[in-house]
């Protein structure tokens, strides 16, 4: 019951929290900014519209948004929000989730290539390159958590009394991991400094250019999927930050939402005070996270 409720709240919150990023950015720019629920309004608006399809496209173009959204939803099914046991959990579920997200990316990229647009091809090439590097970073995190005794499932890491958290016995190592996961969050979800979701020039985009030709409910599915993926990444960071409170489920849930808001706000701050990296620097940026976690693993070799 708690699990389904947590998942329901998460799905409701997924399009709300990006509003926090926009609010923070507006604050830095001295503007009022759009309303907090702007992403929900956009989704509803898109769902009411029809679509225009390019003559070049076929069924792969329509498959992309569906698979992208479905895989993002699958990832959330396995996540133990605020330490509640997730709907589903088994040993190795994290590998299934990461590969399912890979399938989502595979289909999104193919949908972009289906349009025959050189810009979308360019974006797709960048997306698969950076994603393959980010994947290494995530798997090193898996290795570290496995060595810290968390097993190989999301619930094993973040639920129960043995949850991996900053307040635990190996918390110092997790500082490195939190930074690394935050860098990966920025890279995987096309945020500044890797990609700029608000840029106006197609040549410089990565993710946004791949979905230029999608419209209406298809675009809504893509956007909702993207919100869910961002929530998944943010939850990874927020779970590590959780304090070891022996409180009731309500307090736990509220604290977790507070931490999520903090993560999203940090994304907003980062976007406000940093400029975008030049394309050839992005691999170095992503591999920094790999190096950080790798260093943490070397430290565990002493501890264990």
């Amino acid at each position, binding site marked *: 019951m708690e699990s389904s409720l947590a998942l329901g709240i998460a799905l409701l919150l997924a399009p709300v929290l990006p509003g926090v990023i926009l609010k923070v950015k507006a604050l830095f720019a001295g503007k009022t900014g759009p309303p907090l629920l702007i992403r929900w309004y956009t989704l509803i608006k898109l769902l009411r519209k029809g679509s*225009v399809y*390019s003559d*070049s496209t076929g069924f792969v173009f329509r498959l992309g948004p569906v698979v992208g959204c479905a895989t993002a939803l*699958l990832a959330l099914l396995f996540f133990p929000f605020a330490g509640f046991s997730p709907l589903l959990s088994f040993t*190795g579920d994290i590998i*299934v989730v990461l590969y*399912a997200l890979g399938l989502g990316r*595979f289909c999104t990229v193919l949908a972009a290539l289906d349009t025959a647009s050189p810009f979308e091809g360019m974006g797709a090439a960048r997306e*698969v390159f950076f994603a393959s590097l980010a994947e290494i970073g995530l798997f090193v995190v898996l*290795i570290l958590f496995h060595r810290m005794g968390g097993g190989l499932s999301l619930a094993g890491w973040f639920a129960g009394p043995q949850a991996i958290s900053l307040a635990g016995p190996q918390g110092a190592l997790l500082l490195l991991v939190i930074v690394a996961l935050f860098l990966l969050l920025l890279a995987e979800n096309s945020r500044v400094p890797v990609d700029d979701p608000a840029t106006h020039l197609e040549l410089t985009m990565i993710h946004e250019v791949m979905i230029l030709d999608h419209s209406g409910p298809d675009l809504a599915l893509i956007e909702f999927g993207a919100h869910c993926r961002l929530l998944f990444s943010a939850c990874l960071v927020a779970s590590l930050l959780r304090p070891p409170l022996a409180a009731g489920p309500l307090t736990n849930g509220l604290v977790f939402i507070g931490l999520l808001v903090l993560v999203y706000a940090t994304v907003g701050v980062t976007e406000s005070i940093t400029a975008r990296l030049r394309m050839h620097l992005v691999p170095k940026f992503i591999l920094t996270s790999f190096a950080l976690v790798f260093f943490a693993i070397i430290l565990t070799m002493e501890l264990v």
Partner: protein
Amino acid sequence: MHLLLLALALILVGGVLPLIVHRWFRLAKLLHLIGVTAGCLTGLVALQAVWRQPETLTTGWSWLGFCPLVLSLDSVTALFLLPVLLVAPVLALYAYHYLDKPAAAWRTAVSALCFSLLVVAMALVTLAGNMVTFAIAWELMSIASWCLVLYDFERAETRRAGTTYFLFTQTGALLILAAFGLVYQATGSLAFDGMAALPAGIKSMVFFLTLAGFGSKAGILPLHIWLPHAHPAAPSHISALLSGVMIKMGIYGIFRIYLLLGDPTPLFPQTILLLGMASGILGVVHALGKHDLKRLLAYSSIENIGIILLGLGLGMLGITVGNRLMAAFGFAGALLHVLNHALFKSLLFLGAGAVLHATGTRQLDQLGGLLRTMPVTGRTFLAGSAAIAGLPPLNGFVSEFLIYYAAFQGLSLGGGNLLLCLFTIVSLALIGGLASACFTKVVGMVFLGEPRTEHARQATEVGPSMRAAMVLLTLACLVIGLWPEPVLRLIFAGLRDMAPLAGITVDALGPIPANLALGARLLLALVLLVALGRRLLYRGKVIGRGPTWGCGYSRPTSRMQYTGASYARSMVEFHRPFVRVRTEAEPLTRIFPAPAVWESRVEDAAEIGLTRGLVEPVLRIAARLHWIQHGRIQLYIAYIVLTIVVLLLTV
């Protein structure tokens, strides 16, 4: 056992009959198809006996009075026979419409005979129960496959590929024979059984000699050079047989010798793991850099051999450190990947063959938009691409998951082994990401977007037997992905006869097969659910059509699409010390520029190294010694006599 021999005989009959009736072209092809299918199905029935009861079936004859020929069938053999018997009939089915030139009836019949011979030879390699039998079967396999590569022998490129292949395969065979010679010298018997009792030093020599020999067949880096030349040169169903099934015989050899030696020294798994990482990563990077569809697939086979080696290495490491669970996961993952790769690589080569058949070109950058004109080929190729990239809910994911799991088991080890397991996981993740990139490139350039040339625009779907073959293989990939339990039970029945894992059953995996099935089905269910929701959302909506958004440019042409070369460029350059990107361009100089040329090639560092380091010096020495070769027979005989005399006096 007798049933299995009957099966092999049927396959051979299916090869000989077309020669006799080659004047009736269709009848010849039909008889070949019937013979191979009947033989393979009989063989699969015969394998049932092995799955059911744990015993080794053996038959033997004495040949010429001194050569004992022994065939023995245990569960490991059965496991490697499975891909041979499953894939061969599908390929024969494909060939029915693929080889469609009645003018070349004789050649088609000869190719059918070689196909049957190759299938039988591969079966004999796995069945061989002593060193003589093995060597004969191995040579038969090499020669049959060499003849198949030379199908288009009029083309100079094909002859060159054939020669390269012949050199590699014979050098490899020599190394294997040298290892067998060492064993014979130490034990005085041609049987395999004596290997376990060899002294440690000889064991290592035997292992590394056979590793080099079998590695050159399997396409392990840096002995892979023949593979990207020979596989594309053959007709596509032959490429599928070579790439999907035959190179696994190299893996079988390594695995069998390892089991026979029974030596748990950590050096073996460590070597295998390092070779696996190198083959896996560099294989996929080179695949990314290639623009020739079949050559790209050949490099991708090297990548998959790398993945299989990672699994084998983890399994061996598990035995070395006494972790049975890790060993079981590693071996099971590797052996399942052998089967999986046979299925999806055959599928992809058949798809490439269909594209070649329909358009006449293998160059990615001259294709495009084929999904509209070739719907079955396109959809099956798409499924095969997702499978080879290891994505759920298809079969590639199941085997990669098991290998990951084995590697995670190894993280509790210490020292160098820990680092090896760690890098294995990182390599697998990198290989997975790059394979995704590589196959989005292939599907995107060949099947999506707009046709780049007139050939691509005029393509039509291929014949029904070719389509049926591709659909069958796609279904196999999907079934293993969604119902992994029966296949895993089969794989574990195969591990049963391995001494270090004796008595292991699929229960060792615990709930993992069920969980994998759950994950795959859940994913499929969610996709279907969202697709249903999407359909509801679009009910009664206005659907418009228009051109692709060209960012304001009003006269786009299909030549402006992103090319495979530009798609892969930054990824390939990232791995630069190991791959060479050579770009040749004429700069634009004048105000009204003349037509310009820009060419970019990705070169294989191992191939260049081998040419510079070995071939050129050998040729130089050979040129110096040219005076020995003068064409006078009597002096040649004198050389031989002299050699024998010297040998008799010294040895």
